[in-house]
């Protein structure tokens, strides 16, 4: 496609950062969809507004989600994107790939789609951008043949995701990849056939750094932690000290609970275990000297979501510590109980966090059979609006 037709977009080929315009152009000669996408996008740039029609339901046999229907509002001008649906493909845990796998996907998308992708969507799926309705089923069939499946969309379980975890990180307190895979496999039906009040997202982070943004971005966050004491290697401490690293200023004073103390003469660091809240800051700063404890598991949090409707929520603690061992029965059962309660009480488009807000943690905890613990709150209630269960009332 001649650059002269997209003067505005061409501006975005300048500069050092790799350009998505260049990417679209790469496919524009081979793929009318890519060419017309460029044209329609140029129009959007000119008019400062989108040119996609509202919604549109498309899909593949046996699935209620996984494909986002998209139609141009100017199909005459841009016939290549008259139908430009997106397929969400469930990524492998931790976004690890063999080049073989990636090439397979590319080949399939060359055949059926625009040749454009997102690696990845912000929920974590592989996004195959733009195919006409008629190509969806054959594309899916071939993907399936090669071992790929659709991710979530609609009011279902969304594609779970996880950080690199034990595959590439010393902080990992849980096997994020395996947990993510096990949960994804266990709940294929929930993932593929929308049936809930709204979407439900699960993310698994190996430690409190939360490299996968589980707490802000998942309805259910699984975050690795430990229950004993972090491990300090005093030789490592000495190494940092001798390198001139400011242990007192950068580590000890930044410990949120002042759980650390440093003896500069002896070059020794010590921790008061009962005060450590496992924020991993000291580990981040001195990975050669400090490591998580050995009695490991996860903290489970619930309710995270973006701003619609009742503003964004961050997930909050519901289980301070759970052992995480295959087949992860405990967490799976908890998820089932949560969904059952949410499904029964949730209004349409009500995220689980919003439902808990509406009905109160007391009802949630009772329904899913979890004990209330102070770890669930920053601080207890300030108001005296306390509810009592019927059995607590004295009847004479």
């Amino acid at each position, binding site marked *: 496609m001649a650059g002269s037709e997209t003067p505005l977009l061409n501006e975005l080929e300048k500069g050092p950062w790799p350009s998505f315009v260049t*990417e679209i152009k790469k496919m524009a000669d081979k793929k009318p969809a890519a060419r017309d996408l460029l044209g329609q996008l140029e129009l959007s740039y000119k008019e400062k507004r989108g040119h996609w029609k509202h919604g549109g339901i498309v899909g593949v046999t046996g699935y209620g989600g996984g494909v986002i229907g998209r139609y141009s509002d100017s199909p005459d001008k841009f016939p290549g994107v008259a139908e430009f649906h997106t397929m969400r493909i469930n990524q492998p845990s931790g976004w690890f790939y063999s080049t073989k796998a990636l090439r397979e996907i590319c080949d399939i998308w060359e055949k059926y789609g625009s040749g454009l992708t997102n690696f990845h969507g912000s929920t974590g799926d592989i996004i195959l951008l733009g195919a006409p309705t008629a190509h969806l089923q054959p594309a899916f069939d071939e993907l399936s043949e090669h071992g790929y499946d659709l991710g979530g969309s609609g009011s279902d379980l969304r594609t779970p995701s996880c950080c690199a975890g034990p595959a*590439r990180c010393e902080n990992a307190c849980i096997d994020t990849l395996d947990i993510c895979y096990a949960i994804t496999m266990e709940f294929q039906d929930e993932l593929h056939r929308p049936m809930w009040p709204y979407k439900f997202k699960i993310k698994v982070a190996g430690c409190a750094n939360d490299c996968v943004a589980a707490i802000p971005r998942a309805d259910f966050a699984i975050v690795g932690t430990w229950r004993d004491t972090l491990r300090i290697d005093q030789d490592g401490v000495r190494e940092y000290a001798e390198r001139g690293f400011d242990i007192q200023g950068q580590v000890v004073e930044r410990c949120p609970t002042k759980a650390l103390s440093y003896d500069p003469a002896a070059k020794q660091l010590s921790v008061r275990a009962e005060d450590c809240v496992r924020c991993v800051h000291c580990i981040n700063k001195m990975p050669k000297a400090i490591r998580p404890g050995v009695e490991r598991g996860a903290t489970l949090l619930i309710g995270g979501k973006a701003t619609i409707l009742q503003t964004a929520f961050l997930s909050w603690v519901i289980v301070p510590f759970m052992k995480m061992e295959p087949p992860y029965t405990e967490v799976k059962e908890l998820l089932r109980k949560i969904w059952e309660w949410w499904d029964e009480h949730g209004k349409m488009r009500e995220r689980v966090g919003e439902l808990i807000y509406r009905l109160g943690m007391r009802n949630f905890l009772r329904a899913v059979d979890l004990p209330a613990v102070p770890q669930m709150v920053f601080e207890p209630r300030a108001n005296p609006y306390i509810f009592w269960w019927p059995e607590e009332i004295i009847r004479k």
Partner: protein
Amino acid sequence: MAKTDIGPPHYSQMLPPIIKENYGKWKYHEILRPGVLKHVSETGAELYTVRAGSPRLLAIDTIREICNLADKYCDGYLRFTSRYNIEFLLTNPANIDPLIEDLKKLGFPVGGTGPAITNMVHTQGWVHCHTPATDASGIVKAIMDELYDYFVSMKLPAKLRISLACCLNMCGAVHCSDIGLVGIHRTIPKIDHEWVPKQCEIPTVIASCPTFAIRPDPKRKSVQINEEKCMYCGNCYTMCPAMPIADPDNDGVAIFVGGKVSNARTAPKFSRLAIPWLPNNPPRWPEVVQAVKKLVDVYARNAREGERYGEWIDRIGWETFFKLAEIPFTEKHIDDFIFSVPTFRTTTNFRW
């Protein structure tokens, strides 16, 4: 018929041998230089990672080129990060420089590690979505060009994460970013009273409004909007195509700052409003780019080593932040939704 519900491929198929062997045994890491990590295992094995920035929207031909490099240097394995970057996994440190050279030729910058700016989480915008108030990839490209230097170096006080969502649905989940950009509308939806009854479920539309601005219009079997209560979120449009809200002149971008995701030191924090609106000015959104640049610079100049954006503001106070950042504070910065009251300053403790 195709098999259904087979799920994703098992991750073990996707891991290079060195990772399989050292799975769960990593002991510590070092950042050798911007974009290059070294992980050392308890077994003594060493894994090198080279992180390259990606536009996220990738042509299959580009993916194939990336695969070529991974075949050449990494035994045919690679990964993507939670922020769309590409990570090449090497066992031989001698391959690092050649790989980086090859990446440069393909136009991929190496960096994004440590106290740097990494890739922007973002969304579809005009490329694929039906509800955007701004584009996504275009602004991201313009901003990353401007901040490129912070990607390929490690000279900031701490990690600085920028995200963008093209409408209030916030698919970019920008709400906990050091700097978060959100496409916003500023005018109320235009109701097509002919189509509302045909295309939309009235009760659903009414329930979709966070501020209860929508009431039924029984005469027309349609709905009405209370102008004073509408804050242009566009959620009714999501539920009802007959209530379009896009407005080229008034749509634009709001900028939030000071959020974080990690639990390191401090709890995750929401980003908070810095700049209520900047216009959509494609192709390169100069107002937005300059504003972000300025927000980065004021942080880079003033924060202490190791201090995230929000931690810096916590120390100096928002009143000082607005002064340093030279951003006018307006009534728009004051929350007026459900959880507003806890944000009001119920103390005389503040700076002038």
